[in-house]
């Protein structure tokens, strides 16, 4: 009897590349952590981390939406809005990250609120884009239509920024509910990003086993920080998982760069592959969310007076 035909094993150095990429990303993450010099008390530190997380999310959205909307030839004038708002978000969130004592200022708060609301509207636009295609809500349109999750990242960035400001408001709920709700929001953010990455990696048939990484580690981190919202002890587990998620956020663009290299024509064919290959700027969203999560953890851990 004939054995079933097996696909030919890859001759690419996938394990070596994955190991080198993860080592490189860990090194970068370690350097980032060393360079991270938070200022002020716990609330200031949390505000600063939330601001940094929002800024990273906005950088990811700005680059990704600029590239993808350029691919869509800005057919609809509204397609300029996403990248522009992401730029505004970078500015406002970076301001909070650099000067956390000003996080509760009116101007960055208005800017980030606008960014967040724009993300909601963008979500509506993208949903409409998918539904107006023949076949409506089918897998093909979800694969190749406007991505549902992408504008939501702007909303998350806006929320992180606004929460960062609230941390300094001195209101009562900052000491009670806000950190827990923020932890839940971060768990939700991670779950959404995992869903998006998992969906698109499924589209890519998980053809490199490294593509399983964002659907294994970040979901655990999401569960852990969700649990930390309920029980302070879970924060112990959440911290290493969030750090691992952050490292994946750094490793992602490196993996994706290797993915472009593996595509037909490789980097010499960049003008097609930047658009059609794995998206370079998408994975740092994990870094942004993890940074915000790491910032909020101390507020969950330490007993409050």
């Amino acid at each position, binding site marked *: 009897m004939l054995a079933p035909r097996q696909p030919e094993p890859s001759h690419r150095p996938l394990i070596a590349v994955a190991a080198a990429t993860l080592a490189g990303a860990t090194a970068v993450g370690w350097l980032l952590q060393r360079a991270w010099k938070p200022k002020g008390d716990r609330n200031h530190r949390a505000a600063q981390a939330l601001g940094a997380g929002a800024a990273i999310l906005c950088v990811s959205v700005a680059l990704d939406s600029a590239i993808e909307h350029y*691919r*869509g*030839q800005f*057919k609809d004038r509204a397609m300029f809005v996403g990248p522009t708002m992401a730029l505004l978000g970078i500015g406002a969130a970076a301001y909070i990250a650099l000067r956390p004592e000003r996080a509760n200022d009116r101007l960055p708060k208005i800017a980030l609120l606008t960014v967040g609301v724009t993300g909601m509207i963008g979500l509506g636009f993208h949903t409409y884009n998918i539904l107006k295609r023949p076949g409506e809500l089918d897998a093909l349109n979800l694969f190749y239509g406007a991505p549902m999750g992408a504008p939501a990242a702007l909303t998350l960035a806006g929320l992180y920024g606004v929460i960062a400001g609230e941390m300094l408001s001195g209101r009562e709920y900052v000491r009670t509910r806000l950190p827990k709700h923020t932890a839940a929001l971060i768990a939700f953010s991670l779950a959404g990003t995992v869903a998006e990455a998992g969906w698109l990696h499924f589209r890519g048939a998980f053809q490199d086993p490294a593509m399983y990484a964002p659907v294994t580690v970040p979901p655990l981190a999401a569960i852990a920080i969700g649990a930390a919202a309920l029980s302070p002890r879970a924060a112990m587990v959440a911290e290493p998982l969030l750090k691992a998620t952050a490292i994946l956020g750094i490793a992602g663009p490196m993996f994706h760069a290797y993915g472009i290299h593996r595509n*037909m*024509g*490789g980097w*010499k*064919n*960049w*003008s*097609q592959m930047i*658009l*059609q290959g794995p998206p370079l700027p998408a994975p740092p969203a994990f870094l942004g969310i993890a940074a915000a999560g790491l910032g909020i953890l101390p507020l969950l851990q330490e007993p409050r007076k």
Partner: protein
Amino acid sequence: MREFETPYLTYDVLDKWDSPSWNEQTRGVLRKRLEEVPPRRFLTKEQWGLLDAIVARLISQPDRDEPVPIVPWIDDMLHHNHAPGYRYADMPPMREAWRRGLDAIAAEARNRHGKEFHELAPEDQDALLTDVQHNRVESRYWDDLPAGGFFLHHLLKQTVGIYYSHPDAWSEIGFGGPASPRGYARLGFDERDPWEAEELHFEAAGDA
């Protein structure tokens, strides 16, 4: 009949030659196609001349200084016996079909007009080819070879196939040639990558 006018006025697919769209394999294949036009090896001189005259009626190229070579590639295919991998049940093997079909058309021309096919006026050539296409032929020249089948499956398909393998024909219809290595990133309706042909003037057929 309306003359075909290309809407891709400024487009020359060979401008892609040194661009990221093509690699050395693609360039090698095209270089061969452009520069190594094969010599006559299979058809007789008479068959070659006849086929040249037929092809000129099937795809006339009055607007080209250098017409796309078609007969040399048919001869090359026959010389190497590069058959498609199948044979029509009612037709002999490829080489035999071509030999017999061409000779039958030559005989039809001599029988009807007392001249060689290439000496006929274009209208007479067209009329004769139309009759061949519709099996209105003298069976003694064709024996059991179906004239219409030979016309459609061999003459016409090969002629069109070879014509549209040539970069000049690609430029005319805005085709990008091999997507090797660079393919296309904008695949929806009304979308165009910057390295694709651009339609500059377009009129719906029939508008005057």
